[in-house]
């Protein structure tokens, strides 16, 4: 393994230093990156998430950055971080859309069914409002991509949830369309959402093709095997997508066929 500059003990120690956000920021990141199983990791990350507040800009770490990293790390520690769900739900109501984004992803990774209602509530105004750009930035009013993906991960497929997700497959941004199709494919298995993602594999922007690869992998959509192998993108990403087909998918093409395609991409 290349470069492991600090130990778990050191990372926990840094996370305790609530006087120094840049130390906490790194400590939180480390615990998530290394999937720490230390019993103190989750309680300390919850504490860091709870202490969200305007940070001193002079500290070199922007406002709420520690809380965001703590939320991300808690998602990576799923399912051991179930105790963090209540605090993540609270962070989902924070004015900082970056923190809402990190919290939504973590709640998805934790398969937190309690998050379905707030996620749906925030997306209910649809692409024209929740999905509109903020007046002073290109960011959307709600972090739609993360929220849609979380709904797909959590897996509640009631008609009311599907009805809230569906309008986003018409969103003007292809990355949002991709996230919505991914969630719908995970929730319903309906081939038309798989077809939509396969179509995005041919998009002119590399960033969109990459997202569609990840989304097909997350949904484990095996009919996309050939189009994935033929996509103009890095083999590393195609391999991740095909791993998803193996691990999250079923049926035809069978597992051996997917493995054979992976072998050819090494």
């Amino acid at each position, binding site marked *: 393994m290349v470069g492991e500059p600090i130990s778990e003990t050191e990372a926990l120690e840094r996370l305790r230093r609530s006087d120094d956000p840049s130390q906490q920021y790194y400590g939180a990141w480390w615990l998530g990156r290394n999937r720490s199983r230390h019993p103190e990791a989750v309680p300390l990350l919850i504490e860091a998430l709870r202490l969200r507040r305007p940070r001193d800009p002079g500290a070199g770490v922007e406002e709420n950055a520690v809380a965001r990293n703590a939320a991300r790390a808690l998602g990576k520690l799923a399912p051991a971080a179930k105790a963090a769900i209540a605090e993540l739900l609270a962070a989902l109501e924070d004015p900082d859309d970056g923190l809402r984004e990190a919290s939504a992803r973590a709640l998805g990774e934790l398969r937190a069914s309690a998050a379905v209602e707030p996620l749906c509530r925030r997306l209910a105004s649809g692409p024209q409002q929740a999905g509109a750009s903020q007046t002073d930035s290109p960011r959307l009013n709600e972090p739609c991509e993360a929220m849609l993906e979380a709904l797909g991960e959590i897996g509640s497929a009631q008609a009311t949830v599907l009805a809230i997700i569906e309008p986003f497959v018409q969103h003007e941004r292809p990355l949002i369309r991709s996230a919505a199709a991914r969630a719908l494919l995970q929730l319903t298995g309906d081939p038309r959402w798989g077809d939509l993602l396969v179509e995005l594999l041919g998009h002119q922007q590399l960033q969109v093709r990459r997202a569609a690869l990840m989304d097909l992998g997350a949904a484990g959509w095996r009919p996309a095997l050939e189009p994935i192998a033929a996509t103009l993108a890095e083999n590393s990403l195609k391999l991740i997508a095909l791993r998803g087909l193996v691990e999250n998918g079923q049926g035809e093409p069978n597992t051996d066929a997917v*493995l054979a395609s992976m072998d050819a991409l090494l």
Partner: protein
Amino acid sequence: MSQHLIEAVKQAGSAQGLLLATLALAQEATADAAPTLVEVLGFNNPGAAVAAVDGLIAIGEPAVGVLLELDPRNYGARAWAVRALAGIGDRRGLPVLIDALAHDVGPSVRRAAAKGLGQLHLDDLSESEQLPLREQCLDALVGACRDGEWVVRYAVAVGLEALALPLAAPNPQRQRASLALGGLAANPGDEVPVVQLRANLAVQRLS
């Protein structure tokens, strides 16, 4: 003669132009194209580098010399060269592949090296000459079973299978590869499912 195609690569004025010129030169795959294709590996243009690697693999053995002459400090080009050497399978590339699998910081480079170590061309050698070279490949692959990246361990499984399949069943090297694959297939708790599945498939094919 590839001279006009070589000139086109050297004169390319844009990223897209370089890509197209490299594709044309790579398609030709004649030995005199090798130095220019190796130059392209250092141009920081991933699309063109992929095309150049394909071309170098198609050229094969005559491209090995110029690939091995690359300056080790030119990291970007070296990483692509590892992929080309892995694809060509010439044994002169063995030290580079072993070093890359053990030390390269890029998982995609280690991944290519692992696959390459399983498909070195040794057929023209006597069995007693093949044995120590294969042992070096095995040492490197077995050592990389503990690589931190799943995709590298996946490639190690593929490499071990490819190395062992042509060997007769009682061959100790085949048994050593099977043993390492069994470890990947059964790695308790920590191994990702796709690596386990692939290693298991290799174990079945070798049994």
